[in-house]
């Protein structure tokens, strides 16, 4: 169940136990049969609230320094779980999260993870690594490493198409559509780009993420996935007129106070 942190809010950490159990798999003798109702595309999510077992969450999104760090790095989240009753154990067949059909724990590579505060998602992604550490005699600590959906774009090749002169955001939209990702309504938030791209051939050997970053190399904007899992592309800012979203100050008043900061000299 969700956990309340004093003077912070109510936090929820959820891991998907369902999608891995009934996801349609192409060419699979059982899960890949057409015209049946058990195995469906992407599986049916069954979010398990594991907040009560989590003792620490770390989330990193975006980049620290735009002059030195690349944009488009997948966001990461790390969960530290105190597994006192071994329900997160990789060997406990009696775990409520055990997948009897597969004969292994239901939380595994590519299982969904989402973390929220008062209903607002801070991170949505998938498991990329799952480690269980035993401290003798029997203390079990589980570390779950996660990445957002940009990570998955590393594993898909760019589909060839004939490039035509167009803006950077139009090209990115085409690449995402060809890859069949971020295809639900509202999952793509693409700002109008400033870069006019030419008709250089599309390299099919590049992953989707590599090609998107090459497009952005011409734009020098930003590429990221937000806390709810939606894809964003921002153009480069050249004299943009924008409102301030938040004011931070150490001088009191209604501005948000901060404890430490660095004066970064690049």
């Amino acid at each position, binding site marked *: 169940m969700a956990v309340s*942190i004093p003077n*912070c*809010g109510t*936090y929820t950490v959820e891991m998907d136990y369902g999608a891995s159990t009934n996801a349609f798999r192409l060419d699979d003798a059982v899960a890949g049969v057409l015209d049946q109702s058990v195995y469906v595309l992407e599986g049916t999510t069954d979010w398990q609230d594991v907040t009560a077992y989590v*003792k620490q*969450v*770390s*989330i*990193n*999104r*975006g*980049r*620290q*320094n*735009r*002059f*030195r760090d*690349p*944009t*488009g790095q997948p966001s990461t989240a790390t969960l530290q779980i105190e597994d006192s009753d071994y329900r997160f154990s990789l060997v406990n067949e009696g775990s409520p999260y055990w997948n009897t059909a597969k004969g292994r724990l239901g939380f595994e590579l590519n299982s969904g993870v989402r973390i929220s505060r*008062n209903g*607002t998602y*801070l991170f949505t992604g998938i498991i990329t690594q799952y480690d269980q550490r035993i401290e003798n005699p029997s203390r079990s600590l589980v570390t779950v490493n996660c990445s957002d959906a940009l990570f998955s774009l590393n594993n898909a090749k760019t589909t060839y198409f004939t490039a035509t002169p167009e803006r950077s955001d139009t090209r990115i939209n085409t690449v995402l559509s060809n890859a069949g990702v971020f295809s639900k309504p509202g999952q793509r938030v693409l700002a109008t780009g400033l*870069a*006019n*791209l*030419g008709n250089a051939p599309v*390299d099919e050997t590049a*992953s989707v993420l*590599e090609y998107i*970053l*090459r497009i952005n*190399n*011409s734009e*020098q904007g*930003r590429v*990221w996935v937000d806390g709810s899992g939606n894809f*964003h592309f921002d153009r480069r*800012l050249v*004299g*943009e*007129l*924008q*409102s*301030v*979203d*938040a004011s*931070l*100050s*150490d*001088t009191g008043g*209604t501005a948000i*106070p*901060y*404890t*430490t*900061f*660095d*004066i970064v*000299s690049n």
Partner: protein
Amino acid sequence: MPFAVSNQTIGAAGTLEDSFVIPTTSRPNQFTPLNPSVVNVVNVAIAPPAPTAGTLATTIEYAQGIVSESVAEYGVQETPVVITLLATLEDAALLAEYLVRPVPAFWFGNIQIIMNGLTDAQRTLVSSLDIGSQLSVTKSFPNSTPSTVTQIMALEGISHDITPDRHIITLYPNPATIYTYFILDTDELDDVTKALA
């Protein structure tokens, strides 16, 4: 500082590094030179045409942007020639102009906020911030002129550290060319950070 741009060509296309071969995990901003404090010569190439039977060794055209005053002051701080997908040399020149940084910059970064110490409204606001959000950061300094400095920046990164008793957020804003709305009777004229809607 004055910015000048010229069009250049270099030899065979195959002699340049192909950006496709760089692993994504280690991909830097390819325009970042070794010393990124100052960038006063920027080279933005457009993709060369495919070789044909008559011209196997195609040449690469690129726009080179130079800030001469900065070169005189800091020496040549040059980016590599980076092949982009841009359509024309004019587009490349616009990108080169964006990428030059003739003088070193400083900004307020790595700003740590402890959620436990905020009001409900402030907590909701901080939670809603995302990459690309615009921040105004004010800091007062003792024994310093001016005594208060405010910077308007764009948020490039966010990290959260959450434990059972606290939630610490670190914001990573970066400089951006942003204008905020001029407010009559509040803002002053000739402020380069203000603009009319």
